[in-house]
């Protein structure tokens, strides 16, 4: 909060509420701002509402019979709350969904082709592919094998690369570190940082792995039970004692007494 945002944010979400099947309230008044060119993290535990927040922004809620029942989402000043998902991709929002979900029966090269916007020329697409293979040299080596047989890390890279083909200005990633070895998480996060710096792409990163996420983002939001409970710069969040206790596994040691204390506090928070 200390850092004042000068320009208009690329994305702003104001008191958004999401209903699934018209009955289940998944997020309850979430407000988030992503400043242009920044990397922002959305932290929180399982089922806190992080994925729902991303789906509200990308428009994928509809596919799961969810809808925004209150509040508004603005992207570069335009209200996109009710817009078709496809339209939002054209505007520059791309959502790397949870669980990698590459097109398994297509090769990495075809995965990239599949994501190409309708108007993109062949030479433009080739240039875009080369750029992506430069960011992810491992993919270049396996560009013609079946994507279903790639390793978890390679699939995550492919999922990110596939999103980059749509030429987003806001890249949203849902748990890219899920199930990956720490050295791979470091590699992928390093590449994300590079993309953010070289292309000026804004990034909204959803993570349970708060430790890794807070290393690369400038600001973070903490979501619990469908509400934003904390917001601040990465440095402020890292030094916050609650965050340290609950999400970073640090703090004043982890003896049994403290663990009991923390679950009691956690109940209070929610």
């Amino acid at each position: 909060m200390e850092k004042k945002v000068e320009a208009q944010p690329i994305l702003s979400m104001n008191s958004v509420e999401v209903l699934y099947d018209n009955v289940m309230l998944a997020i309850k008044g979430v407000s988030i701002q992503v400043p242009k060119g920044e990397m922002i993290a959305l932290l929180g535990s399982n089922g806190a509402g992080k994925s729902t927040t991303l789906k509200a922004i990308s428009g994928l809620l509809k596919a799961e019979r969810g809808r925004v029942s209150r509040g508004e989402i603005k992207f570069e000043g335009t209200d996109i709350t009710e817009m078709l998902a496809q339209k939002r991709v054209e505007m520059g929002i791309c959502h790397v969904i949870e669980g990698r979900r590459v097109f398994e029966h297509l090769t990495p090269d075809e995965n990239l082709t599949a994501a190409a916007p309708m108007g993109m020329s062949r030479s433009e697409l080739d240039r875009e592919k080369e750029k992506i293979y430069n960011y992810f040299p491992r993919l270049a080596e396996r560009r013609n094998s079946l994507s279903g047989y790639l390793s978890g890390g390679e699939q995550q890279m492919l999922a990110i690369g596939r999103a980059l083909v749509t030429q987003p200005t806001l890249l949203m990633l849902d748990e890219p570190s899920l199930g990956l070895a720490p050295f791979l998480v470091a590699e992928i996060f390093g590449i994300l940082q590079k993309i953010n710096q070289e292309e000026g792409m804004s990034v909204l990163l959803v993570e349970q792995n708060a430790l890794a996420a807070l290393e690369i983002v400038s600001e973070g939001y903490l979501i619990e039970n469908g509400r934003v409970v904390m917001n601040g710069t990465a440095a402020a969040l890292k030094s916050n004692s609650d965050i340290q206790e609950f999400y970073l596994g640090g703090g004043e040691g982890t003896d049994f007494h403290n663990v009991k204390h923390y679950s009691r506090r956690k109940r209070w928070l929610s």
Partner: protein
Amino acid sequence: MDWVFLAELAINGALTGLLYSLFAIGLVLIYKASSVPNLAQGGLTMVGAYVVLALSHDAGLPLWLAIPLAALIMFGLGFGIERVALRRLAGRPVIMILMLTLGLDIFLRGTTLAIWGGTSRSMELGVSYEPLFLGDLFISRIHLVGAGVAIALFVGFMVFFRSRTGIKLRAIADDYMASWSVGISVERGVGLSWALASVVAVAAGVIWGEIQGVDQALSLLLLKGLTVAVLGGLDSILGAVIAGIILGILENVGADFLDPLVGGGSRELIVAAVLILTVMIRPHGLFGRHEIERV
């Protein structure tokens, strides 16, 4: 054993089989995009044949014009089916979509019965009924033409699925959610697969209409077409072609051996046995996609 006769049975069986493939390619196209065997493919084939008849015999257009025009109309019909019926079912269980296609088949049969009646009409393509002699072998000309059409469509679709639009369709078949996430219009893709399958239905309707006459019985081709598609693997066009040839030969040669023993009707038994055994022994067929499991 009369080898010439056996060869003749095998070749004509293979040609008939390719005509089953011609039908099955339509099934595969829709299965690839929607993961549903389209039970209305027989109905579409029948409608395709009737539309050609309506344009040529009723409206007096020459066949070379009537057939492409019918293909165009059916292309639109395929898109329309997605827009009106299927789009509402997106994200619902597959069984719902399956039932919808069954309902559509019944609807199409009823509609043609109401408009054109149930009397069998002939297509009159102008292909001679004189058999072709290949040495000592008798070969049916219309079957040869149909087999050629099937192979041409096969080659055309192999090329198509390597194009950008084709790759997008394959992506949709793989994962709807991931397709939406990168801005692929799943709805338009599914619509396109129905449109293409409807065009294939015109080709199958014309050839089969010439062979057995145009009436509601054309929609029963579904049973053999489905057997071929299942044996080939439901989502493999190459599979549909090869399975068609296999089923055609099995049926023709097998029936020649079995019919004297059981007193006729063994063709249907062979088809049924192939369908049941495929599902029991090799559910994803000869060339079907199976779930990828990494170790």
